[in-house]
């Protein structure tokens, strides 16, 4: 049986992984890809429910496949990729809505904590740790490949392979968060805290720290309000994260960004 502590543990691990992945997603201008990619989980959930297997397994399998598809298409023209992502992944949402029905659909779209097995808890935490480890280990390659893939290649980075692993880590992060936020909102948890982090930070390590802190804080506060009000936690988590983002838009006299602007204008 799951306890509140188990659920909090897993959601903190998920939020931390999402902060690490999201920091690079907003820099790589992948903000708009997060949503359609998360939609692809829905048909997986539908099929898994029909076959009476854990819906998270179905979702994860579809997400891993979806990331592979994006990766394979990335080599082609940019505009074409975006069109294909828009069409294929929205179609996935439509197919998924038909194959999943009633309460299951609502849970899949917005997240439902439900009961959490020990195995799932352990697996979730292991996956979150693996995602965080991947970002920490690959951050140098990711920075350089982000600034210029050509330059990265001459520095010995296998850019295509790095892209593949990043996209799969991204997809697995979505899979991790589905239980809490659902297909429609998980993309938001990856992007919104990182958008605040990007505004407030003046260096990469600051960005990672700020984003992860905001992501975990939003998840904890959202989950707590959800349990208290007996409401779905997903929308609350996203609302808290969005509130923090709005606050980050306020001019902060002592923020690093402000300082760097002052030095820049000299």
């Amino acid at each position, binding site marked *: 049986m799951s306890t509140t502590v188990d659920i909090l543990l897993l959601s903190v691990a998920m939020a931390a992984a999402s902060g690490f992945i999201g920091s690079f997603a907003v820099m790589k201008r992948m903000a708009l890809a997060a949503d359609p990619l998360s939609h692809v989980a829905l048909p997986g959930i539908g099929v898994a429910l029909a076959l009476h297997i854990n819906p998270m397994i179905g979702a994860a399998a579809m997400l891993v496949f979806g990331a592979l598809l994006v990766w394979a298409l990335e080599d082609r023209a940019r505009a074409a990729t975006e069109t294909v992502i828009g069409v294929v992944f929205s179609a996935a949402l439509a197919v998924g809505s038909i194959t999943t029905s009633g309460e299951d659909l609502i849970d899949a779209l917005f997240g439902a904590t439900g009961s959490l097995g020990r195995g799932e808890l352990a697996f979730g935490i292991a996956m979150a740790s693996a995602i965080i480890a991947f970002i920490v280990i690959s951050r140098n390659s990711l920075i350089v490949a982000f600034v210029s893939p*050509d330059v990265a290649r001459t520095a010995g980075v296998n850019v295509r392979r790095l892209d593949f692993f990043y996209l799969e880590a991204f997809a697995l992060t979505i899979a991790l968060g589905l239980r809490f936020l659902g297909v429609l909102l998980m993309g938001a948890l990856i992007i919104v805290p990182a958008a605040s982090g990007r505004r407030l930070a*003046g260096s*990469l390590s*600051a960005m990672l720290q700020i984003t992860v802190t905001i992501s975990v804080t939003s998840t904890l506060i959202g989950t707590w309000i959800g349990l208290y009000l007996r409401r779905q936690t997903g929308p609350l988590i996203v609302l808290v994260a969005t509130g923090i983002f709005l606050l980050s838009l306020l001019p902060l006299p002592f923020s690093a960004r402000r300082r*760097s602007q002052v030095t820049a204008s000299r």
Partner: protein
Amino acid sequence: MNPVLKVEKLAVQFEAIHILNDLSFSVNKGDLLAIIGPNGAGKTVLLRALIGSIPFSGTVEWAPGTRIGYVPQKLDLDRDIPITGLDFLRARVALAGKRALDISSILMQLGLPLEVARRPIGTLSGGQFQRILIAFALVGDPNVLLLDEPTAGVDEPGEERINELVHRLQLSQGLTALFISHELSIVNRYATNVLCIGHGSPCFGPPRTLLTPETLRDLYGTEVKYHVHDR
């Protein structure tokens, strides 16, 4: 002498458009090869093919042990990217492992203050970021530099420093460099050989024989006011 780079029958095409055709040349250790030609002739495409970033036909052969430092042409970055110049340079150090050179001494040689490198790269001026890119290439201790208009956007003293630094590395460490330039006086002053691509068939040879009004007119398809002065 064994060449550092041997290119034979290199051709690049995007869909149906031929960018480069039947290009053959070689570069010896310690050479400075200038690549000149009009805009759109495929100079940047050539460098990108040489580093294996785009598909091509023909052969590109680098000597064993070649370590390339590549300085791309102007990059388009968002202003609010929270990566500082130092983040970027330290990433190169981490990737290079033991080979990495000292960041601060390279920045000093390029005339870029450390405070500037501490700022987010999106807030740097074109010339400052260009020097960060050159520093990035040098930190990896390269023996070959590929420079795509390295001094574009750099102020006069900065340009002088960069040219002198590359020249010094060439003399002291036998560094080989391939550089794209539109400044024919710089090409004439530093280049060992010139490769020209543009209108007509490509030409290759020392600047003295290539930088003539006739070749330049053929290359650019128009009259070019340039005369070779004594070195």
